C-alpha cells in the first residue's frame, strides 16, 4: 500500500533540537498553511491527510504490531483538524490516548467551528488545546509550550494551565 507523507525541516541544522510536529488535515490548503506556520516557529513538520495515515505514521496502524519502532517515536506534538471524512480528529485523539506508546504526546484539535460541546468533548478526551481555524502565527507560537520534550522522559506538563 503506497503511503505518502510530507516532511520538511526549517532552515536550521537538524541536531534533533527542533520539535517535530505531526499535522493532520484533509484540506491540502490547510496542510500547506499549518506546515508554513510551524516551520516559521522552527519546527520540523510531517503532514498527513487523514486519521488512518497519521496512525500509520505513528506506528499505530491496523496492520502494524504494537512494538514496531517507527520514525514517529520523536513526535513532540500532534495537531489535527476535527472535521475529516472517515475518522474525525476526535476519533484520532481517542486512538492516540488509547495507545500505551503514544498517549503522552500532546494533541491539539483545530476546527473552523466554535461549538462548546465539541470543544468540551475533545478536552475531556485529553486534548491539550482546541484552536479555531484559520490558525495564525500567534496561535502556533503558543503551541511550543505544549510540545513534549523528548530529552526529558518525565510526565510533568510544561505549560501549567492556559
Amino acid at each position: 500500500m503506497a503511503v505518502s507523507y510530507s516532511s520538511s525541516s526549517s532552515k536550521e541544522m537538524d541536531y534533533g533540537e527542533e520539535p517535530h510536529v505531526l499535522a493532520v488535515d484533509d484540506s491540502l490548503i490547510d496542510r500547506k498553511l499549518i506546515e508554513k506556520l510551524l516551520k516559521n516557529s522552527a519546527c520540523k513538520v510531517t503532514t498527513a491527510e487523514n486519521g488512518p495515515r497519521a496512525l500509520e505514521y505513528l506506528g499505530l496502524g491496523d496492520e502494524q504490531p504494537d512494538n514496531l519502532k517507527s520514525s514517529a517515536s520523536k513526535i513532540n506534538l500532534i495537531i489535527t483538524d476535527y472535521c475529516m471524512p472517515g475518522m474525525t480528529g476526535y476519533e484520532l485523539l481517542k486512538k492516540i490516548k488509547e495507545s500505551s506508546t503514544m498517549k503522552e504526546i500532546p494533541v491539539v484539535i483545530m476546527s473552523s467551528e466554535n461549538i462548546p460541546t465539541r470543544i468540551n468533548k475533545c478536552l475531556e478526551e485529553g486534548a491539550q488545546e482546541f484552536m479555531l481555524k484559520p490558525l495564525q502565527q500567534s496561535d502556533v507560537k503558543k503551541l511550543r509550550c505544549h510540545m513534549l520534550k523528548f530529552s526529558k522522559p518525565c510526565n510533568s506538563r510544561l505549560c501549567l494551565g492556559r
Partner: protein
Amino acid sequence: MEVGQLQRQLVDYTASLYNEGFLDDQFTQLQQLQDESNPDFVVEVVSLFFEDSEKLLNELARVLDQQAVDFRRIDAHVHQLKGSSSSIGAQRVKNVCIAFRNFCEEQNVEGCLKCLQNVKHEYSLVKNKLETLFRLEQQILAAGGSIPMME
C-alpha cells in the same frame, strides 16, 4: 509605467479589495508567511484554492441538478469551500458559504440554487481580483521594484 507608480497602484488596489470586503485579515496573514525560502507561497496557496473551488462548484451544480438532492453531500462540499475560502481570506465567498449551509440544513433547494449562483459569482470576482493583484506584483518585480508590504 515606472516602478513608483506601479507600487502606488498596487497599494491602492489592495486597499480597495479589503475595503470592498473581498479580502480579510487572513489574506494579510498569508502574505506575512511568504519569505525568501518560499517566495511564491501566496500564489501557490491561492492557486490551490482556485483549483479546489472550481472542482467543488462543478460538483455542487451536479448534485443540485439531481432528482433527489443529497443535502449531506452539498453540505460537505460547501463546508470544504467555506474552509478553504476562510483560510485564504476570501471573505465574500466564505460569507455566501455560511448562508448556503443554512439553506442546506433547511433542505431548501431554491435557497441552495440561489446560493450556488451567488457563490459562483463571488468566486469569479475574487479570482479576477487576485489575478489582477498578482499581475501587478509581477509587473513591479519585472521593473526591478519590490512589493510594498501592507500594514
